[in-house]
C-alpha cells in the first residue's frame, strides 16, 4: 500500500510539475522596466503627459534622440548629424556660396558642398527622415488627443482648455515639416493622423503640398496663441504667418504662381504683431538669445542648452566649427580654445559682399588676418576667411554652461528676415510701400551700426539678395534665396567649389531640388525619383 501511495504521489507531482510549468506562458507578455520608457496606455493616466508629448514634437527639431546628443532615433546617418537644424543648414547653406566644411571625410559633406550629391547622400536622408519624423510625431499627438480619447480618459477641463492650442501647434509643426520638404525635395510622403503605422502613404508633389500647407495654416489660425503670447520655445500665430509668407514669396518656384501680394500681407501681419529688432545684431546669435533683446526679434527658435538640451545642432556646430585653425579663438566664444580645429570657413563670394563700406557693420564678423581669401584646397584649414557670428557668450559678458554644447538657440525665423521679405515682395510687385521697404532695410543697417543707409534707387532685387546674405548668412536660407533668383543652378552665378570647380562651374537645372533618398524611396514605392537624378 505504501508503494501505491508513492506512485500516486509521484504521478501527482509530475502532474503538478506540468501544470506549474505550462501556466507561466503569460510571462511572455512583458512591460518595459526602464524608468525612461512608458507604455502609451499608462502614459496618459498622468495629464501632464499631453504637454510633454507636445514637447516631444517640438523637441524633434532640437534633439536627435532621448539619450544624449550622440543618440538618434534615425538610422543610416551619424547620430549627432541627424539634428534637424544641422541637416537644414547643410542643405540650405553648405550647398551654396557661404560656407565650407573642412572635414570632407564626414560622409555626405563633400558631395553637398561641391554639389555632387546623389540619392545615396546620408545628409539628405537625414533631412528627409527628420522632417518626416516631425510629421509622424505630430500625427501621433493628434491621434492621442481626439475628443473621443480625451473623453475615454476623463481628461480634466483645465487640460481640455489647452487642447485646441496644443493640437494647432502640432498641426503647425507638421505643416512646417511639409513646407521644408516642398522646398528641398519637391515632394513628401503624405501622412496625416489617419495614416496607419508602417504603411506606404501617398506622395504629394509641390502643388498638393502647397495647398495642404496653406489650408492647414489658415485653418489653425484661430486656435493658435497670438504672436509673442505663447511660451518661449512654442510656436504662435506668427510662425504660421512666417511659413505662409515664405511659401508665397517662393510660390513662383513651387507652383509657378505670383503670390507676392499674399507674402507682403503676411509680412505685415507679423510686423504688426509687436516684434522689434534686437538692440544688437549679435544678440540674436548669443548664448542668452532666449532672454536678451533678441526675444523681441526671434519668431521661432530651435532650442539649445548646454545642460538640458544638448545637441550637435547648427549653433553647436557653427560655434565650435568657426573657431579658427590659426586663431585658436574658441575661448572668445565660450567653447574650447581650439574648437573643432577650423571645421568651418567662408567662401570668397561671401567675403566680397562685405567689400567696401562694411567695416563698422556688426554683421561683418570676418576674421581674415594671415589668411588667403581663396580656398584652393578644402582640407587646408588655414586658407579662406572665418567668421565669428554665432557665439556661446552672453550679452552680459558671461558664457554658456558647457564648452561644447552651446546655450545658443538657432533663430529659425526672425524679424529681420520678414523685413527683407517685405522689401523683396514689394519689389516683385506685391504692393506695400517703397518707403516702408526702405525703412525696414535701413532699420537693419542702422541696427548693425552701418551708417550707409540705402536710397530708393539702391533698392533692387539684386541688392536684396546681397543684403539677405549679409543679414541672414549661415541661417539656412541661402539655397532657397538663390533658387528664387535663379542663381543656384545654371551658370549665372558661380561661386567657389560650385559644381566641384574651385572657381565654380554651372549646375544642371535639376539640382534645384534634391534627390529623394534611395532608402526612403525603397520603403515607399509611391515615391519616385526627381527628374534628372
Amino acid at each position, binding site marked *: 500500500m505504501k508503494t501505491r501511495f508513492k506512485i500516486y504521489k509521484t504521478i501527482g507531482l509530475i502532474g503538478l510539475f506540468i501544470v506549474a510549468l505550462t501556466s507561466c506562458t503569460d510571462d511572455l507578455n512583458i512591460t518595459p522596466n526602464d524608468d525612461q520608457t512608458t507604455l502609451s496606455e499608462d502614459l496618459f493616466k498622468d495629464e501632464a503627459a499631453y504637454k510633454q508629448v507636445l514637447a516631444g514634437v517640438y523637441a524633434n527639431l532640437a534633439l536627435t534622440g532621448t539619450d544624449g546628443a550622440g543618440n538618434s532615433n534615425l538610422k543610416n546617418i551619424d547620430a549627432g548629424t541627424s539634428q534637424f537644424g544641422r541637416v537644414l543648414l547643410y542643405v540650405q547653406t553648405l550647398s551654396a556660396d557661404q560656407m565650407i566644411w573642412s572635414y570632407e*571625410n564626414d560622409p555626405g559633406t563633400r558631395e553637398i558642398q561641391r554639389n555632387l550629391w546623389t540619392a545615396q547622400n546620408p545628409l539628405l536622408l537625414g533631412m528627409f527622415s527628420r522632417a518626416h519624423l516631425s510629421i509622424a510625431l505630430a500625427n501621433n499627438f493628434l491621434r492621442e488627443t481626439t475628443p473621443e480619447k480625451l473623453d475615454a480618459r476623463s481628461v480634466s477641463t483645465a487640460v481640455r482648455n489647452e487642447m485646441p492650442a496644443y493640437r494647432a501647434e502640432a498641426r503647425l509643426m507638421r505643416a512646417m515639416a511639409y513646407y521644408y520638404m516642398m522646398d528641398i525635395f519637391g515632394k513628401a510622403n503624405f501622412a496625416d493622423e489617419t495614416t496607419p503605422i508602417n504603411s506606404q502613404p501617398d506622395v504629394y508633389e509641390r502643388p498638393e503640398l502647397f495647398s495642404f500647407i496653406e489650408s492647414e495654416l489658415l485653418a489653425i489660425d484661430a486656435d493658435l496663441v497670438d504672436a509673442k503670447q505663447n511660451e518661449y520655445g512654442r510656436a504662435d500665430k506668427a510662425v504660421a504667418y512666417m511659413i505662409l509668407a515664405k511659401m508665397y514669396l517662393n510660390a513662383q518656384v513651387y507652383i509657378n504662381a505670383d503670390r507676392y501680394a499674399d507674402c507682403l500681407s503676411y509680412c505685415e501681419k507679423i510686423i504688426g504683431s509687436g516684434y522689434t529688432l534686437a538692440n544688437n545684431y549679435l544678440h540674436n546669435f548669443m548664448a542668452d538669445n532666449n532672454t536678451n533683446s533678441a526675444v523681441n526679434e526671434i519668431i521661432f527658435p530651435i532650442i539649445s542648452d548646454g545642460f538640458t538640451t544638448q545637441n550637435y545642432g547648427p549653433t553647436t556646430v557653427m560655434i565650435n566649427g568657426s573657431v579658427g585653425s590659426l586663431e585658436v579663438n574658441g575661448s572668445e566664444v565660450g567653447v574650447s580654445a581650439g574648437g573643432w580645429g577650423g571645421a568651418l570657413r567662408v567662401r570668397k563670394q561671401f567675403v566680397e559682399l562685405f567689400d567696401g563700406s562694411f567695416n563698422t557693420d556688426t554683421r561683418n564678423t570676418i576674421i581674415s588676418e594671415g589668411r588667403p581669401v581663396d580656398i584652393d584646397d578644402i582640407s587646408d584649414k588655414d586658407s579662406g576667411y572665418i567668421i565669428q557670428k554665432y557665439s556661446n557668450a552672453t550679452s552680459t559678458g558671461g558664457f554658456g554652461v558647457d564648452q561644447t554644447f552651446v546655450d545658443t538657440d538657432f533663430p529659425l525665423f526672425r524679424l529681420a528676415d520678414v523685413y527683407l521679405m517685405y522689401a523683396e515682395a514689394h519689389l516683385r510687385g506685391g504692393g506695400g510701400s517703397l518707403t516702408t521697404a526702405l525703412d525696414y532695410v535701413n532699420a537693419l543697417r542702422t541696427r548693425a551700426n552701418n551708417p550707409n543707409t540705402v536710397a530708393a534707387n539702391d533698392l533692387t532685387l539684386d541688392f536684396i539678395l546681397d543684403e539677405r546674405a549679409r543679414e541672414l548668412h549661415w541661417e539656412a536660407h541661402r539655397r532657397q534665396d538663390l533658387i528664387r533668383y535663379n542663381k543656384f543652378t545654371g551658370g549665372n552665378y558661380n561661386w567657389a567649389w560650385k559644381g566641384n570647380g574651385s572657381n565654380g562651374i554651372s549646375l544642371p537645372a535639376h539640382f534645384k531640388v534634391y534627390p529623394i533618398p534611395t532608402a*526612403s524611396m525603397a520603403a515607399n514605392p509611391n515615391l519616385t525619383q526627381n527628374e534628372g537624378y
Partner: protein
Amino acid sequence: MKTTTKSLLFFLFFVPILMFGQTTLTGTVTEQSTSIPLPGVNVVIKNTTTGTATDFDGNYRIEVNNGDILVFSYVGYQTIEITYSGQASLNVQLNEDAAQLNEIVIIGYGTTTKKDATGSVEAITSEDFTKGNIVTPENLLSGRVAGVSVTTSGAPGSGSQIKIRGGSSINASNDPLIIIDGLPIDNNGVNGSRGVLASINPNDIDSFSVLKDASATAIYGSRASNGVIIIVTKKGKSTFSATYDAQYSFGELTDRVDVFTGNAYRQLVASQPINGTTLDESLLGTANTNWQDEIFRNTVSTQHNLSMQGSLFKVLPARFSFGVTNQEGAVLTSEFERRNLSLALNPSFFDDHLKINLNANLSFEDNRFGDSGQIGAALRYDPTQPVYDPSSPFGGFYQHIVSGNLANGTTNPVAELLQRNNTGDSNRSYGNLNFDYKFHFLPDLRAVLNIGFDETEAKIIDFTSLSSRIQNLDKVNSSRGFQKRTNKLLDGYLTYNKTFDNMRTEFTVGYSYQEFTNEGSNTGNVRDALSLPSTFADPDVVLIGFFGRANLTFLDKYLLTLTYRRDGTSRFSKDNQWGDFPAAALAWNLSDEDFLKESKTISSLKLRAGYGITGQQAFFGANDIYLNRYRGGDSNSQYQFDNIVIQSLIASEINPDLKWEETATMEFGIDYGLFDQRVSGSLNFFQKNSTDLLFTASVADGTNFSNSIIQNIGELQIQGVEFSLNADVVKKDDFTVDFNFNATFLDREIKELALGQDVRTGGISGGTGNNIQLLREGFSPNSFSVFKQLYDNSGNPIEGAFVDLNGDNVINDDDRYLKENPGADVILGFQSNINYKNLDLSFNLRANLGNYVYNNVNSSRAQYELLQDNAVLGNVPTSVLETGFQRTSDVIISDIYVEDASFLKMDNITLGYTFSNISKHLKSLRLWGGVQNVFTITNYSGLDPEVFNGIDNIIYPRSRTILAGANFKF
C-alpha cells in the same frame, strides 16, 4: 501501455513475494585495462525489468535466482552477459568498445553515442582540447572543430567571436547558443567584464559538444540557428584524486606599426611635404621617442588551479576547484585577474534511481582596462617629444601646450594610460541543480529537472587624475557604474527508452522556461555639475519552450530522429510570439551491412541526411519594440518651454509585426572510420537558408517614429563543406602520433535584402560615420564598397583619381564597387600530438584563405596632411612614402586599402615531460613549456591579418608568449 501495466503489477505484487526466494549478489565492476571501478554500470536480469546500477565505487547489489542471466552494460563498453550460478560475489571487468564509436556524445536534453548520432555533432573531450595559453574556455576549441571559428583579441582575458558555420544572420546575432551544464547562457556580457566566457575557468571544463546542423540543434528551437556549444563541467568522483596546475607565461609584442622615428620625422617635417600648408618646424622637439614602445610592455601572467575530487563522508561524490588567473595586457596598465571557485556535488539515491548533480560556481573577475584607443594615439603622437617633462603642469608628463592650455589634438598616450584608472570588478555566480530520476515502477522512464541560475554583478570605476588637465577640471571624468544581469532557468523533461525486437526507441518530451534581466546605473561624472546620474533597465526577455524528440533505431543500422520544438519569446507581440521548429534526420550505418561488415579497411561508415528549421529572435535593439512606447529624454535631452525644462516624451519606433527569423538547414554527411578506427572523420555538405531575416530596414518616412526599424525582410544563404580527419599515425605502447585536420569551405550570399536596397555597414575611423562595407543582393555580406584606384604609368596610385565606373563624368558614390569580403573562403585547422615514452609534444596550425581586410590604419592615417594634428604636429605611418598621399578624404574609400589577409598561424606548440609514480602521494608530475602565437605567415601589410569583421582599425595586438607549466597529480 501493456508493458507498463505489467511492470506495475510486477512491482506491486510479485516483487515482495519473490524476494524471499532470492539471493543477494554483490560485486564490483571495473574497467579492464585500468582496473578503475566503473560507476553507473547497468546491471539487469535479462528479460526482466529488475536491475540496478553500480555505485560510485563500482559496487552493485542485486537480488538474483539461480540461472538468471545478468547483463552488465555501460555506454562505451562491450556488454557482458553472465549466468548466475550461486556465486557469493561476482566481479566483472568491462572492455572498452571498439574505439570511439560508442563514445558518449552530449546532445540537447540527453545523450547519444557517436554511432547513433544522426546529426552533425562533434564531441571534444579534455584530451582533444587545444593546448597552450588558454585563459577563456572557447580557446580550448580554437582551430579544433571543422566549421567553428574562434577569433580572440589580444586584450587580456578578452572575449572571442565564435562562429559556427559562419553564423546564420546578417543583422541579428551570429553567436552560437552556449549551454553550460544545461543552462543556456546570455551572450551579452556586462560592462566591467571582458566577456561572457571570461569568467569561466577553462580548467573546470570536461567536454564540449558542438551541435552544428539543424537536426542536432532544433531541440533548442529559437536559439539554435547559429549552432550550439554544450559545455559539460567536471563532476565529482568517488575515488580521491587531486591536481594542481601552475602556468607562467611571458609575453612580448614582436611587431609594431611602422611610423617615423624622431630623426626621420624631423627630416620629413623639414621637407614640408603637405601641399599648400606649411608645417611649423618650431613645434618640433629634440627627443626620439618610440611611443609604441612606451605604451606596450612585456607581460607576465600566471595561472594556478587546484582541484580535488573524492567522496565526502564516503557517500557524496564531490569535486572542488580553485583557480587564480592573472594576466597582464600588452597595453600599459591593462590587466585581467580572475578567481574561480567551483563545487560539484553528485550524489545518488534510491539505488541510483535518483541522481542529483549540483554545480555551483563563483567567479571574481577584476579588470583594469587600458584604453586601447591609446594605441592609435601612440601611432600619432609627435616622436620628437619626450614622455616626461619635469616642468610639465600635467603631473610630470609632457603635453603640447598652446596658449597656456592643453593643445587640441592628440595627447600623450602614456599620460592618458597612467593617469586614468578604469577598473571593472565583475562577480558572477552561476550553476545548476539537476535531478535525474529513474522511475521505480518504470525504469525505462526518466524524469529530469534542471534549475539553473546565473547572475553577474559588475562595478565599474573610471577615474582620471586631475593632473591630466589644467583647465576645465570639472570635465575630467570620475564616474562609477553598476550593472547586473540575471538568467534563470527551469526546465524538465521525460525520457522513455524501450527496446523492442529489432527496434530501439527513445522518446523525450520537455518544457523550458528562461528569463533574462539586465539593469544598471551610472553616476555620471561626479566632478561635473552638468553630468547627472542615470539608470537603465532592459525589458526582461522571457523564453518558453516545449520540445519533443523521438529516436528510432532499427536493426542498429537505420536511425531516424524527429525533433520538434515550440518556442515562445517575449520579444514579439502576442500574435507572433510562438514559433514551431521541426527537424528530421536519417542515418544509415552502412558498415553494419553484411557487405561491409567484414571489411578490414572500413571499420565504420555512416551516411546521414538531415533537415530542420531553427529560429532566431536575438536581434540587437529594443526587446519591446512591438509595444506602443514613449521615451522621456535623459537629463541632457529635455526641451524647454519658456526657458523652463519640460520632460519631452517622444514616441519610440514600433513594429508590432516582428516575428522569428528562420533558418532551414539541409545537411548530408558521411562519418567514416578506417583501419579499426585509426583513421576517422566526417565529410559534411550543408546549406542554410535564413529567411525573414531580422533586419533593420527603411520604413516609409512619416509612418513610424524612425526611418528604419527592425523588420523581417531578406534572405541569406550559406553553403559549406566540412571535412575532418583524425588519424592515429603511430600507435605503440610508448610511441604515439596522432593528428586532426579539419577544413571548412564557406560561401555566404545575400539572396534577398529588404526592399532590394543596398545597406551600408562597417563603420571606419576617419571622418564621422564613414562606412566601407555594403550589403547587396547577390554578394557576400559586408563586401567592401570602394572606389577603383587609378594608377599612373609607373604603377603608382594617383591621389583622388578613381575610375568613373558608371561613365557619367562625375566621381561620386555611384562609382563605388564591391571588392571582396572579410569572410574566409577556406578555414583550415591542424593539430598534432606526439607522445614518446614520457615525452609529449603538441602543436596546432590554423589558416584562413581568401579573407580580405580593409587596412583602416593606413587609410585613415597614412596621409601627409595628418602631419598637422590640429594645433600641433602628429606622426603618420611610413607607408605614406609608398603612396605619397596627401589628403585622407581623397583616398579613404580607395580599393588600395582592401588587402588579401589570408594567413597561416601556428597558435601554439608545447613540449612536456611526465614523471610518474614519484611517491605514494604524488602520482605524477608533468613539466611543460611552450610558445603561444608562434608565427604568422601572411601577405597582409598591417600588423595582424586576423581582425574582427574585416576592418583593421588598430587591434589590440597579440603577444608572442613563452609558457612554462607544471601539472601535479595526487
